[in-house]
């Protein structure tokens, strides 16, 4: 609160940054962010840098970091994770991402993590992981630097910076996507009522293979009928049985001889004969001969 008051007066340079250090809510991407707006002003104002010296932000942290638990929750929910929070802390201090002061950032980050803990905010493991990583970097930077021959080991700070940069570019990409014109907001697709349709439903195609597979399947299922099914007669006989029945349908008596077509040759005659025999056997037709050596007639048993 006092920091807020003193802010404009202390340093003019701080003025433009005030806008710059606006929390991510300023981007106004998601609804919760908006909700966070007013609640958040308190903590962020409190830690606003009041001076920039040689590109380095000088920050006086407020004595009381107290944030009402609900507000804190909203505040933290405004962040998309530890990287986002870190970016925010860095930006708020007017620091270039390549030039972060690890110990300062670590201290601030830890303060937030402690706060989260204090209000029993369900602390995501990711935040703790980042805390541990920051602590490690900090401790390594305190150690005397061995000579440059340990190049093989990557500078953990560089690693952190890379992660921050990588995250930031996608954070930016997300904002770009949000800004892109899109359907239902900026773009309306034109449509007109279609004419009355003359629809034709095409018939499904069937492959002979499918038919055979289906038959194989049913036969496997109906194993007990196997004996019944597998008969020696050729399919042509069954086909001819159908033809004979067709020929008989609607007729009273049909002369036996008329069922044969000599043009089919010997084989055809045999097939027809077998078909009629089978029809008799299955009681589908009956044979009638009124007198000895008289003409034989065939009649369907049913029609």
């Amino acid at each position, binding site marked *: 609160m006092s920091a807020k008051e003193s802010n404009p007066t202390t340093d003019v340079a701080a003025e433009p940054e005030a806008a710059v250090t606006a929390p991510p809510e300023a981007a106004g991407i998601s609804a919760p962010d908006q909700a966070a707006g007013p609640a958040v002003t308190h903590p962020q104002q409190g830690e606003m840098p009041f001076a920039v010296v040689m590109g380095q932000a000088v920050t006086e942290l407020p004595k009381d970091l107290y944030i009402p638990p609900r507000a804190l929750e909203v505040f933290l929910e405004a962040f998309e994770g530890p990287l986002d929070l870190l970016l925010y802390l860095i930006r708020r201090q007017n620091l270039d991402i390549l030039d972060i002061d690890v110990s300062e950032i670590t201290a601030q980050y830890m303060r937030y993590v402690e706060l989260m803990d204090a209000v029993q905010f369900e602390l995501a493991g990711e935040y703790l992981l980042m805390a541990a990583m920051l602590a490690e970097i900090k401790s390594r930077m305190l150690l005397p630097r061995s000579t440059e021959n340990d190049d093989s080991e990557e500078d953990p700070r560089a690693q952190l910076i890379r992660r921050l940069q990588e995250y930031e570019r996608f954070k930016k990409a997300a904002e770009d996507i949000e800004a892109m014109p899109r359907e239902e907001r900026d773009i*309306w*697709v*034109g*449509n*007109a*009522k*279609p*004419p*009355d*349709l*003359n*629809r*034709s*439903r*095409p*018939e*499904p*195609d*069937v*492959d*002979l*293979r*499918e*038919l*055979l*597979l*289906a*038959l*194989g*399947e*049913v*036969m*496997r*299922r*109906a194993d007990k*009928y*196997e004996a019944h*099914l*597998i*008969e020696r007669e*050729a*399919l*042509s006989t*069954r*086909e001819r*049985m*159908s*033809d004979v*029945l*067709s020929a*008989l*349908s609607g007729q009273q008596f049909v002369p036996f001889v008329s069922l044969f077509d000599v043009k089919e040759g010997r084989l055809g005659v045999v097939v027809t004969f077998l078909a009629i025999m089978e029809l008799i056997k299955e*009681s*589908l037709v009956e044979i009638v001969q009124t007198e000895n050596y008289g003409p034989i007639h065939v009649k*369907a*048993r*049913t*029609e």
Partner: protein
Amino acid sequence: MAESNLVQIVEGALLAADKPLSVAQLAGLFDEQERPDNSTIREALAEATARCEDRGFELQEVARGFRYQVRQSLSPWVSRLWQERPQKYSRALLETLALIAYKQPVTRGEIEEIRGVAVSSNIIKTLHEREWIRVVGHRDVPGRPAMYATTSQFLDYFNLKNLDQMPALAEIRDLETLTAELGFSEPQEEGAPDQASDSEDAAESLDLAVVGGTEHPSDESTTDN
């Protein structure tokens, strides 16, 4: 100029809307202070209508208001957008058809006995509509059930000269053996360069083998349609 802009707004709104828009609704798109009166909007609608001359769509007034619709004369082409993909026939239908082919003349009851489940009337109806089966008589048992047989259209569809070109039942019963056997002989026939040497290939060619499994002249039938 504002005039032309009004027509554009009317055109854009009508095209974007998913229902007809009334004059009042069109007026509602404007802020009060710049809202055109109804007669001005009607003029814009008339202009938009005139602009449809010789286009594939027209502006039509219906009960609820105005809408663009595609010219009825274009129906033959536009309808194709909704031409349904042919669905596949059910397994039950294929089994029924196969049994009719192999067991003809056969009644529905006999098919049901073999399949172990009822044959739905829809299947019989579909097969009739497709003109793949016909009734060749009625069995002389109670209920006088119809006996079904396949038709010449059925043969034509599968590119068969007669039913004898279908594989024998015994072959089908042993489909696995059949396909395995044929799977090995197939590469020769088709001149496929890679012999089904390893088991992987053999398994893959199984599908094909069934196609070839007919081994009859009817082979071609599997490739058409």
